[in-house]
C-alpha cells in the first residue's frame, strides 16, 4: 500500500515507530500531487523544497517520533488562512502576489503539533461559492468525476484529501464551505461550534459565521485535528475560553440510547432520490446500532438562505473594503485615489464577489437597514432558537449534507440563486452557531458519486457529533472507497 493512502492515525503510527520519516511522508505526497494534480487542480501553490526542509527539521528534532499529535504529518491549507512567508490570495486576483506576514492561530497550533505546512489549496474567491468555479485560477475537479465540481468553497482541500493528495487539510465554513465539499468529494469535514477555533489569521468573509475546520479521511482523524485546532485565543475576541476535551477519547462510546433528531423540514420535495435513500438507510443503520430516532421541527428553515445572504453579504461588504490597493495586493493606478479604488477593485474582484459586496452594501444602506439587515438578524435569532428547542428533544440532528451530489462544471454557473440553494442544509448551522460534520454515507449508482450525511450537535458538543459519526463510519465501508485517478 502506498504511503499517501494512509490516514493521519496510520501515518502517525509509522512515524512514531520510525518506519517512516517526515521527509518520506512529505515526498510521498509531493509525488502523488505531481502525478494527479494536473487533472484535479486542488493545489494553488506548493513549495516542495520548503516542505521538505520543514520535514527534515522535524526529523532532526525527533518530533515525529515523540507524542506530538501531528509530528511529521503534512497538512494542506486553504488559501484563506495566513501562513507566515507563504502566499495568501484567497484565490483572488486582488491579492495576487501577497505574502502573509504572520501565522494564523491555527497555523501556530499546527506548527506546535509538529505538522508540515505543505501547500495551499484552491477555493471559491474569498470563500464565496459552492463549487470552486469562482476561483480566479480555475475550477478544481471532483476526483470521482473530472467533469464535475468538488463543491465549495473549500473544494481544493476536499478534493486533495479525497484524492490522497493530502492526509488532512484545513478549510473554512461560512455557510457549508467545509461540509458541502466534503460531502461531494466523499471525505469527512467538520465545522466546529462558532468560537471553538480561533479565526485569527483567517481572511474574513462573514465574521459572525466563519469558522475553520479540518478535512480528513476518517472521523478519528477529524477528532485528532480538532484537538490541535480548538482552544481559546486572546487575539480573537469571539473565541471561547472553554476547555478542550480529548475528542479522541470520546469516540468509542457508541450511540446506544442517544436520541437522533430528524427535522421534517429537511426531507424536502425535489431532493435527489438516491441522496434521500442513502440518508434514510444511514438513519436505519444508526437505529440498528442502538440510537433512538425522534422527529423534530426547525420551523424557520425556509428563511435560512435569505437571512444568510443578507447577513453574510453585509459583513462581507465591510470585510472586503480593505482590499483597496493602498497597502498590499494588486493596485491599478488611477487619476486620483477614488479612481484607483474603483479600478483596483474593478479589476481585482471576480463577478460573484462583486455581486455580494453590492448586495451587502445595499442591505446596510440608509433606509434599507431595518428591512433587510436588522430583520435578518431577528430571524437569525429565531433560527438559533429552533435548534435550542430541537436539542431539548434530541442529542444530535441528522440530515443530508447537500440535497444533491456533485453537479457538472458550468451547470449552475449562470444561476446564482440555484447555486445558493445547494447550501440549504448547511447554512442554518452557521446562523445558529452550532457544530456539524459531514461524512460519507453512500454513492449514487451511475455516475458513481459520493453522498454525505450531516450530523449536527449542540454548541460545544463536538464530542457527541464525532461519537455518532464514528459509530456510523465504523459500521460501514464508505470511508474506505477511493476514486480511481
Amino acid at each position, binding site marked *: 500500500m502506498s504511503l499517501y493512502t494512509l490516514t493521519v492515525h496510520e501515518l502517525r503510527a509509522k512515524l512514531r515507530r520510525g518506519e517512516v520519516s517526515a521527509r518520506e511522508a512529505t515526498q510521498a505526497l509531493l509525488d502523488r500531487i505531481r502525478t494527479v494534480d494536473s487533472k484535479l487542480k486542488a493545489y494553488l501553490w506548493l513549495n516542495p523544497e520548503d516542505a521538505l526542509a520543514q520535514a527534515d527539521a522535524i526529523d532532526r528534532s525527533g518530533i515525529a517520533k515523540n507524542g506530538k499529535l501531528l509530528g511529521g504529518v503534512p497538512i494542506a491549507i486553504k488559501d484563506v*488562512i*495566513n501562513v507566515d512567508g507563504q502566499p*495568501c490570495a*484567497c484565490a483572488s486576483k486582488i*491579492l495576487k502576489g*501577497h505574502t502573509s*506576514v*504572520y501565522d*494564523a492561530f491555527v497555523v501556530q497550533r499546527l506548527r506546535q503539533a509538529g505538522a508540515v505546512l505543505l501547500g495551499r489549496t484552491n477555493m471559491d474567491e474569498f470563500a464565496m461559492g459552492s463549487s470552486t468555479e469562482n476561483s480566479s485560477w480555475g475550477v478544481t475537479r471532483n476526483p470521482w468525476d473530472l467533469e464535475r465540481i468538488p463543491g465549495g468553497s473549500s473544494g481544493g482541500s476536499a478534493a486533495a484529501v479525497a484524492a490522497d493528495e493530502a492526509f488532512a487539510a484545513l478549510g473554512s465554513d461560512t455557510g457549508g464551505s467545509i461540509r458541502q465539499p466534503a460531502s461531494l468529494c466523499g471525505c469527512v469535514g467538520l465545522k466546529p461550534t462558532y468560537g471553538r477555533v480561533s*479565526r*485569527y*489569521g*483567517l*481572511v*474574513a468573509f*462573514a*465574521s*459572525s459565521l466563519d469558522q475553520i475546520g479540518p478535512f480528513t479521511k476518517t472521523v478519528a482523524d477529524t477528532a485528532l485535528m480538532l484537538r490541535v485546532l480548538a482552544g481559546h485565543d*486572546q*487575539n*480573537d*475576541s*469571539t473565541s471561547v475560553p472553554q476547555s478542550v476535551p480529548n475528542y479522541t477519547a470520546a469516540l468509542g462510546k457508541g450511540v446506544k440510547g442517544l436520541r437522533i433528531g430528524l427535522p421534517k423540514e429537511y426531507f424536502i420535495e425535489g431532493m435527489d432520490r438516491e441522496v434521500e435513500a442513502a440518508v434514510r438507510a444511514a438513519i436505519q443503520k444508526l437505529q440498528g446500532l442502538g440510537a433512538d430516532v425522534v422527529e423534530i421541527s426547525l420551523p424557520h428553515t425556509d428563511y435560512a438562505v435569505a437571512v444568510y445572504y443578507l447577513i453574510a453579504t*453585509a*459583513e462581507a*461588504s*465591510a470585510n472586503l*473594503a*480593505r*482590499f*483597496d490597493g*493602498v*497597502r*498590499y495586493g494588486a493596485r491599478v493606478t488611477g487619476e486620483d*485615489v*477614488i479612481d484607483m*479604488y474603483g479600478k483596483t477593485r474593478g479589476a481585482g474582484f471576480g463577478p460573484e464577489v462583486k455581486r455580494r459586496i453590492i448586495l451587502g*452594501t445595499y442591505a*446596510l*444602506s*440608509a433606509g434599507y*437597514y431595518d428591512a433587510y*439587515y436588522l430583520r435578518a438578524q431577528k430571524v437569525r435569532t429565531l433560527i438559533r432558537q429552533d435548534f435550542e428547542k430541537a436539542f431539548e428533544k434530541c442529542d444530535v440532528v441528522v440530515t443530508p449534507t447537500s440535497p444533491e451530489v456533485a453537479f457538472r462544471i458550468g451547470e449552475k454557473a449562470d444561476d446564482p440563486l440555484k447555486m445558493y440553494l445547494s447550501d440549504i442544509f448547511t447554512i442554518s448551522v452557521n446562523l445558529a452557531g452550532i457544530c456539524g460534520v459531514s461524512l460519507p454515507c453512500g454513492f449514487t449508482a451511475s455516475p458513481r458519486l459520493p453522498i454525505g450525511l450531516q450530523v449536527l450537535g449542540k454548541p460545544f458538543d463536538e464530542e457527541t457529533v464525532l461519537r455518532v459519526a464514528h459509530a456510523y463510519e465504523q459500521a460501514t465501508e464508505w470511508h474506505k472507497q477511493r476514486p480511481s485517478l
Partner: protein
Amino acid sequence: MQYEAVIGLEVHVQLKTKSKMFCGCAVEFGAEPNTRVCPVCLGYPGALPVMNEDAVRKTILTGLMIGSDVARFSKWDRKNYFYPDMPKNYQISQYDLPLCLRGAVEIKLEGSQTKSVGVTRAHLEEDVAKNFHFDTTSGVDFNRAGTPLMEIVSEPDMRSPDEAFAYLTALKEILISGGISDCDMEKGQLRCDSNVSVRPVGQKEFGEKVEIKNMNTISGVRRALAYEIQRQTAALQKGEAISQETRRWDDAAGKTFVMRTKEYAHDYRYFPEPDLMPVAISDEMLAAARRLLPELPEAKRQRFIKQYGLPEYDASVLVAEATLAVFYEQAAQASKNPKAVANWMMTDLLGKLGEAKTTIMECSIKPEQLAELVSLIDSGQISGKIAKEVFAEMFHSGKSPAAIVTEKGLVQVSDTGALESFVEEAIAKNPKSVADFRAGNAAAINFLKGQVMKLSKGKANPQLVGELLLRKLNSK
C-alpha cells in the same frame, strides 16, 4: 435685528494609554513613520481587533467626571467609508450604544458667573492614520492608526465664542486632572470641530448649521467662531440664506472656506462589529473607576498644607483650578523649596497668565523649569531681581532658566575681587552717604548697596555686597 449664535462642539481626545485601541502597538507621538504598526492596525487580511480595557476605563472615568450616565451595556459598530488613512476602510466606533450618555461641563463666564454646558454623549473609537502629500506621490503613516480616541459631543448650549473657549478650557482641565489625556493640541491629542448657526434673538428654532473643521488651538476655535458668526449674521442681514455645509478654518487668512456641501453627506452604513463582543460594565468596573476619580479640592487643600508646608491661603489659591494644582505638584516635587515655588506661581505666573489672557495649560513654562528657577536663586547663582528677568524670558520663549542665564550672562557675581572695585567706586562717589553711615545712620548703607547693584548691572550677590560694604566702611 439682533442675532445670536448657537454653538455645539465635537471634541476628539486621544487617550493616554500605553497601547492602541485594538492591538498591542505602542501609542507614541513622533516615532519614525510606520514603525508602531502590526497586522491589526494596518488592516492586514485575517487580523482581528481586541479591545483595550484601559481605554474603556478612562472613558468611564470621564463619564463619571462630567456626570454622564455610564452605560451598563455598550457595543462596537463599524462605520464604513473609504479613505487612505483608514486601514480597513471602516472605523470601529460606537453608534447607538455609547459608553457615556448625557452629562455636563461647568464653565466660568466673565465675573463670577458660571454656566452648565450639556454633553450629549461620549464614545470610544479608533484614530485614523496620517496622510502626507509630496510633489508627485502621497504617503500614509499608520503609527497613529488605532490610537484610542474618545469623541465628546456637546449640546448646542453655547451662545458665544467665549463660551466655546470656556467649555474647551474646562473640558481640557477635567481630562488632564483625570489623567485621561495630555490634551496637547499641537500633537493632535485634542481636536475640535464645531457646529454653529445664527438666529434672530427670541426665535426658538435653530438656524441652518455649518460645521467648521481644522481649528488647531483653543483660541483658534474662538477666532473661527467669531468669524463664522459674523459671516452668517451679515449674510442673514442681507437676506441671504445660510446653506448647510462643512467649512474649513484657515487661521492665517482668518476666514472659513467651503469644504463640502450637504449633497456629499456620507451614508456610513453603521452595523454592529461582529469581531468584538459587546461591553458589559460591571458594578466592579464602575466602582474601580470611582476610585480613580481625582481628589476633591478640599482634600487636596489639606494635603498641600501638610505635604508642602503651605499656608492656608496659598493652598486655597493653588487648588482652585485642577490644572493649576497639577502644575504646582509637578513643580513642587521637582523642587527642594515648595513654598518658594508657590510664591512664584501665585504672584508672577498667575500675573503673567492674566496679562497674556491665557491659561496654565497653554503656558510655555514647564513645572520642572519653575522648580529649576527657584533652585538657581536658592543656590545663589542668580539674585531674586535677575530671576524676575529670567522668568519673563521663560514665559516668553519657553527656554529653560539655566539656558537663559548662560545666554544672557546673568550669573550672579559672587567674586569678591570684582565686587570690591564696585564697592570702592560706590564709596568714593557717595561721600555723603558714607558720612551719614559713620555718623550712626545705619540705613544709609542701603543706598550704597543699591549703587553697587547698579554698577554691577544687578548681577552682584546682594548679601556679599552688604558684607563687603560693612567691612570697608568700618575699617576706615
